[in-house]
Structure formats: C-alpha cells, structure tokens
C-alpha cells in the first residue's frame, strides 16, 4: 500500500513502472495480510450485526433505532456478505493470491524443474549438515554411498560433468510446489463460489401431498419456473418416543410433458438430483387444510345401522338410497359472530365442520355443524346424526431447491487443498549430495556428504546421521578386490 502511494506521488515515474509497483504491492505479503485482517474484521461484524437475509424485519426494527438502521442499511452492514465491498474485498484477496503466486512461482518452478545436482565448492562449504569421510579411492566411496542410499530407499543418480562427478539423490521434490497447489485450490474454490453466485440459485418449494408444481420461490421473493415439474406422491414424518421428529420423507416424481421421468423417496441428507437441480427435504408440517374427516353416522329415526365414513372436503357420500352427505366447509379454528362462522386462524385449534345432508324424498337440504352450533343450525332436524371421530389434516412437504453449477469447482478445490496442505506440512523435500574429493598432491581421498531439507530440519539431521553411519559401514564391508579393481579402472580413466 505504501509502495502504491509513493509511486503515485513520484512524478518522474513512467506508467509502466507505476503498473509494476502496483503489481509488486499486490504480490507483497504485507498487502495480503492487511486484506486478510480486513476480511476477518468485516466477517466478524457480519456475525454481530443482525443480517437482513436471516432476520425478521420486525426484529431488526426492535434491535436498532431508525437512524442506526438507516445508517447500517446504507453502508450495507446489515447484509455484509452480499455487499459490493465485501465482494470487492474477496476479489482483491484473489488478485493478491494470483499476483503473489505469479511473482514467486517462476523461481520455485526453476527450483523444481532443474534440480541442483552437483554442489560447487562454495555450496559445499556453506552446506549444513555435512560430513567428510576418509576413503581409499573415489570409486569405492561412491559405491558405498550408492548402496547406503539404496538401503534408505533412495534412487541415487550419478552426476558426471566434464571435470567432476558425484552422486545426487532426492525425494519428494513436489513439496517445493505444494504451497502453490494450496493457493491454486483456494482460487478454484473462489471460482466455484463465483460461478454459483452468478448462475446458481436457491429457493423453496412447498408441496401438498398429490400436488405438482414447477414454481420455486427464490430467496429474494421472485419465482423461478422450472422446465419440469415435481410431484409429491406422499410425505410423512416419523417420531421418536418422546415426540421429537426422527425422520421426514417425501416421495417425489419428476414430471415433464405428462411423463414421469424420475422417482425417488428423499429424506433429510439425501436429495433428489435432476438436471443439475437438487431437491432437499427441509421441513414437513400441517398445511391447515383438511385431508379427511372421519365420521360416525346414525339415522335419526333409529331405523338403520350406524356407519363409519371418511369424507374429504366437497366430497359427497351416499348414506342410504335416499340420503347423501356433502362436506361443505371446514374451519381449523373457528369463531361465531352475528350468526356467521369465521376462520380465526389456520392452526388446528378449534375446528368446525359444515356438512350438508340431502334427502331425495323430502327434496330438502339439512345443515349439520360439528360441533352443534345453536345460532347457526339445528342438527336434530337432519335425518342422520353425526359424530366426528377423527380429523386427518393435510400435510405439506417443504423442499429446498438449489442449482449450484459451481460446486464441482468447490469440491475439487477442497480435495486439492487437503492434499496440498498434507504435502506442505508433512512431505519433506530431502536432498543428498556425495562428492569424492582427492588431493592431487597427497593422493589422499575423502568423501564429502551433504544434505538439505526444506522443513523439519531436526528430523532430517537424524536421517543424515543415519546415512553417514550406513556409508561408513558399507565402506568397511567392501571386499578388498573390488576396491583394487575399481581403483585400477579409475586410474585408467
């Protein structure tokens, strides 16, 4: 940031160098840290200030004074996570990751693609850990080192240049790039989230049993019409013994042009997927409508037997050759005023049913109310007397509907970040170099062994000491003739 300010005030700077400075500012760890701190602060604010999308408007007004609410609304603090500035901040974070990666990646790539295989003298002097072993000749030293490295599970490689030679062995070179894998997978997750933000949508669909619909109510109140419809064939709830819900289920069918394309019984945690749209079981409950009224009817004159009938709203049931009954009206929660029946609420609190009994012979309709409402009608005139046995209320199943085309980006990013982090923290890039050094004057030879690790150096040092011990053992166990033969061959060279 400071760099950016400086570059703007400097008049002599050309446009190109300004761009370069901005780029450097973005690539700097300082900018990244500042941006992350801002994300932390704003996200925390978003959890402490009540957020519009998940709060009742009434509660918002109760919690804040009108002025404060206006201020919060105008700054977007009541919907932090969808505010343009929060989005902008996330874009900046992504840019920062991109810039920092591009800035540092070439170096890491060079390191990765062209491993340093032969240590020159200055490197050998500075390298830690290192060890010098006395050897009889160059070849025996190299053979011993190769065997030792093999037994440690490495694949040693002979490095031969014009004027020198040695051994190089390494493991887990990928560790050098793991940090970039982690950052790239973060970008992949962001990318998926952005795709979902633009092309994805979420909404709800409430269906009564037997109902078919293709109109999804979106979070912002709009309606989205699907190219296919969903029919709910059945839905239900299972309870634990203490009455808390154990399971909600719905039998759904995908319908298009009158044909059933797919059927599935969904439960919570197991959605129906069709054409990239997912249908989740999210709730279940009474819809305030009656499904069936169970009645017990007895003829008023005592001439016939008692019969049990189940009757749906507006359905007509024949009681005997002469008499039929129709279920005319239903009130889940009723009140009577001025000779009229009103619906007080949709909750099943105080139900009333209006039946119409028709007698062909008498050519007359009789109103029957359950319970008996003296102000409205006299039940005793009816040719049948009724008792309500049971009410079967209709239920709706609440479905969450979502279309998230970007989620594959998110999940692949998640898998990659898991792998990346495991490599970053637990896979160590280990390198060993072995160089035989002979003093041309004295003819005495020694074997230089060096090693390096990009993390967890204490553990690596143990590894290194293990290698040195093994090389020493191999040197001792090499049979004398081999040594001489090989000495000879080296001498010939």
């Amino acid at each position, binding site marked *: 940031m400071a760099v950016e300010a400086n570059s703007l005030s400097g008049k002599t700077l050309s446009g190109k160098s300004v761009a370069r400075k901005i780029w450097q500012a973005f690539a700097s760890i300082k900018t990244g840290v500042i941006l992350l701190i801002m994300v932390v602060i704003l996200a925390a604010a978003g959890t402490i200030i009540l957020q519009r999308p998940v709060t009742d408007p009434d509660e918002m007004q109760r919690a804040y004074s009108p002025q404060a609410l206006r201020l919060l609304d105008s700054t977007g603090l009541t919907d932090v996570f969808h505010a343009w500035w929060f989005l902008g901040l996330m874009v900046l974070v992504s840019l920062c990751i991109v810039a920092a990666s591009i800035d540092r990646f070439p170096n890491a790539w060079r390191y990765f693609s062209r491993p340093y295989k032969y240590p020159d003298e200055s490197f050998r002097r500075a390298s830690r850990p290192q060890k010098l072993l006395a050897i009889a000749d160059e070849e025996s030293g190299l053979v011993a080192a190769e065997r030792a490295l093999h037994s440690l599970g490495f694949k040693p490689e002979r490095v031969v240049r014009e004027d020198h030679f040695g051994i190089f062995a390494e493991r887990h070179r990928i560790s050098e790039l793991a940090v970039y894998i982690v950052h790239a997978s973060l970008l992949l997750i962001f990318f998926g989230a952005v795709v979902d933000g633009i092309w994805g949508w979420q909404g709800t669909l409430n269906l009564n049993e037997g109902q078919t619909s293709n109109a999804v109510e979106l979070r912002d109140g709009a309606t989205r019409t699907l190219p296919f419809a969903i029919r709910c064939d059945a839905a239900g709830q299972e309870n634990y013994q203490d009455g808390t819900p154990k399971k909600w289920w719905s039998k759904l069918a995908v319908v298009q042009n009158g044909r059933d394309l797919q059927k599935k019984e969904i439960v919570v*945690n197991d959605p129906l997927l069709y054409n990239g749209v997912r249908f989740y079981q999210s709730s279940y409950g009474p819809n305030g409508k009656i499904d069936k009224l169970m009645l017990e009817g007895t003829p008023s004159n005592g001439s016939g037997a008692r019969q049990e009938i189940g009757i749906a709203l507006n359905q007509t049931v024949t009681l005997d050759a002469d008499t039929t009954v129709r279920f005319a009206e239903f009130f889940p929660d009723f009140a009577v005023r001025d000779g009229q029946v009103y619906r007080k609420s949709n909750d099943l609190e105080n139900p009333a049913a209006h039946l119409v009994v028709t007698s062909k012979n008498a050519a007359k309709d009789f109103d029957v109310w359950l319970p008996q409402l003296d102000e409205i009608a006299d039940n005793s005139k009816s040719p049948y007397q009724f008792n309500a046995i049971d009410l079967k209320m209709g239920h709706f199943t609440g479905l*969450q509907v979502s279309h*998230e085309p970007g*989620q594959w980006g*998110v*999940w692949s990013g998640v898998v990659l970040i*898991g792998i990346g*982090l495991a490599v970053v923290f637990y896979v160590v890039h280990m390198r060993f170099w072995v160089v035989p050094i002979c003093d041309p004057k004295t003819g005495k030879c020694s074997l230089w062994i060096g090693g390096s690790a990009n993390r967890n150096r204490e553990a690596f040092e143990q590894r290194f000491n293990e290698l040195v011990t093994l090389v020493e053992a191999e040197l001792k166990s090499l049979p004398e003739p081999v040594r001489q033969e090989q000495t000879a061959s080296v001498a010939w060279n």
Partner: protein
Amino acid sequence: MAHAKAEQQQPTTGATLIVLVGLAVVFLLFMAFLNVVKSGNLLSETNLLYAALIFYAGAGALYLGFGVTGTQSYLKFASFSTWLGLIANTAAIAHRWYEAGHAPFASVYEMLLSFVWTLAALTLVAEKKYAVKVIGTVTMPVAIVGVLLMQLLRTDVHPLVPALQSTWLHVHVTLAMLAYAACALSFALAMMFLIQDKLKTETVLAVTSASTLAIYASIVSTRFEKWGALNLVAWNPETKSEVFLSRGVRLFVTIPDLGWLMTLTSLVVASPLVFYALARWKKSDSFLTLANRAVFLSILLQVMTVAIFMLRARDGHYPSLDAEGLFQTSLAASPFIFSGLVGGVFISLLYLLLLWRRPDLERSLPTADNLDRITYKTICLAFPLLTLMIASGAYWANQTWGSYWSWDPKETWAAITWLVYALYLHMRITRGWRGRRAAYFAIAGFAVVMFTFFGVTYLLPGLHAYA
C-alpha cells in the same frame, strides 16, 4: 488444595502432597462409592464422569504441586492420575455412545465430553513424546473446568434431529474436536514459551489481573441490579431447562447482595493492576510487592465469591423483576458465569505458581527454542484439521440445507479462526516470525477458537443451534 500447598512456601518432603492428594482422591472415591451403593448402579455415566473429574483434579493438583515444589516424583503420579482420568472419561464416552446409539457429538455437553478426552490424550502425548512435562499444569485445569461445565449442562440423551443423522456429523465433529484440542495445546505451549522466554513476572501479573478483572467487570456490567442484587437466569428443576417469558426471552431472578459481593471482588481483583500501574509510573518495586499481596487477597476473595455464588444459586427461591412470584435458579442456568469465576481462580493460582516457583518451572520446561518449535508444529497439525473440518461441514451442509456456505455465524467464525491461523503461518514462514510475536499470535488464535466453540453457540445463534 494446591493453593494451600503453595502458601507453605517450603517444600518439606515430596511425599506430603502425594499423600494429601491420594487421601483426597480416596475420600472422594469413597463418597462416590457410598452414592453408588445407594443407587445400586456402578457404571452410570455420572459416576464415570465423576471418577474422571476426581482423577483429573488429582492430576491437576499434582502437576501444580510439581510446579510449586519441583519434586520429580509428583510427575509420575500426575500422569498416572491423568491416565486413570482418561480411562474413566473413555468409559463415560462409551457408555453414552451405547445409550444414545450415536457418537457423542450432538450437543454442547457431548462435545465437551469428547473435547476433554482429546485434551487429556494430547497432554499425555505431549508429555511422553515431546517431554513437555508440566503441560498438565495448564491443560488439566482446562479439563477440570470442562468436566465441571458438563455437570452443569443438560445431560439428557437427545435423539438426533433429522439434520444430524449423517455420517458427516461424525467426520465433521471429530475433526473439530481434534483441531480445537490441538489449538488448546498450542496455546498451553505458547504460554510456557513465554515463561521460558523470560517474560517479566510483573507483565504476567498485569495480564492475570486484567483478565480476572474482565471476567468480573463483564458479570457486574451485565447482571448488576439495583440495590446490590445480581440477575441470574431462572431455572425450572422439573424440566431441567431455563425459564422463558416468551420465545427467546429468558426470565431473570434477582439474588440480593450478590451484586455487591461481585463489585467488591472486581475492585479487589483490579487492585493488582492499579499497583502495577503505580509501580510502572513511580518506578518503584515496593508497589509490586503490594500488587502481589493484592493478588493473594484477591484469590481469597474470589474463592469466597465462588463459594457464596454456588450456595446462593443452588438453593432458595428468588423474586424476579419481570414476573410475579418466586423462582429457582441453578448453577446450570449460568454455566458461563460459573466457569468464568472458577477460571478466574485458576489463572490467579497459576500466577502465584509462577511468582513463587519460577526457577523450578524454568528448569523443568524444555528450552524456549524447543517450545517455540513445538508450538509451531502443533499449529501445523491444527491447521489442516481446521481446513478439513470446515470442508466436511460444507459438504454436509450442502447435503442437508442445499448450500455449502450460508455465512451462518458458526461458519463465519470457523472461517475467521482458519484465517487467523493462516495469518500465523504466513507470518512465520515468509516473515520469519518467531518467539514472542508468534506466541502471542498462537494465544490470540486460541481465544478465537474458544469464541467459535462457546461464544457463537450462546451469543450468536444461527443454523448451528444444536451445537
């Protein structure tokens, strides 16, 4: 107990404390046994948890005792006691798992059960593998507070609501507990690093005093009622739940005089801080002596406050300002006030330990460099776990709610925790932050973890309502 020991100032023989702790454990087990005989049920969860509490408390006292006297033999007994506590804790988990038919991750209570278990296990690992012998001095008190909290929270086995019936529940919560326990360990290690790094004892004094003051000030400022009373949430002993006036509005009872007591204690707790400020201002060490005496006084008063608070909150019927009649309350209705008070006593005791036995402590801890490195390693363990925890939660949410990220407070705070540790790693790896700054960062990170774990559940309700 440990406090009384600390007062003696002279480590007479190493055996005294072991005998005392042993006697206390035996006495408590005997009392528990009487209880078992009465109820005729030996392996109930309560009993197992009680046993775990006793052993953890014994271990905590021995770890403290080791810190105070430097007697090596305490350590063996302490880790033995931790082992026993861990076994009892494991049995309690197994019992609950069997009884509930699902892994114990469905409520705050069950998660605490798992958290304490992980913490005790990690303590033993740190002790054996990294030779951080006194780590129990910090982790055991946390475990004890955890078990105490469990005694207060609801223990009924709740069947799983539909949204929780998923394998991902286990994956998600196991990862969360492992990650949080690793964070707790890094916190303890960072604290020890600060001691080894020659952080001035009086700085610790200031921080201790400030944090106890913060506990009391937040209680007094939110709960003080006119004429020195204290507001506490009412409790219905029959339904074992808080009393609600209407949806989301709790009924408060006012307990007379407790407010004055809290105010008095907060003043006394603040006094070391005042003396510390005076010492800095006048540049005189005599004020520091006064400050240390004030800490001692504040511990006495704090213990008294806890005792009186427990007595008043457990029994008795109290009036309420919002409703007619008398209501009961319970410690279970105010778990956070209670654990805050107990926590205050613990941190003050830890300060006394540091004040009196610093050289011994320093001798028994690994070097500062090692502690710094182990702290970093623990965070290297915690960070991938946090990442996987968030990822598994997102995957599960996508299956249940139809969206992998909904900016629910718990999600947001988990992301904030992740970011804080990500910042730590960046600072450490690219900026070479070592030592103090890294240790402060690790401590701050753990504070965020604790807020995510407890604070969000109780202060910022959302989709994660059941946990």
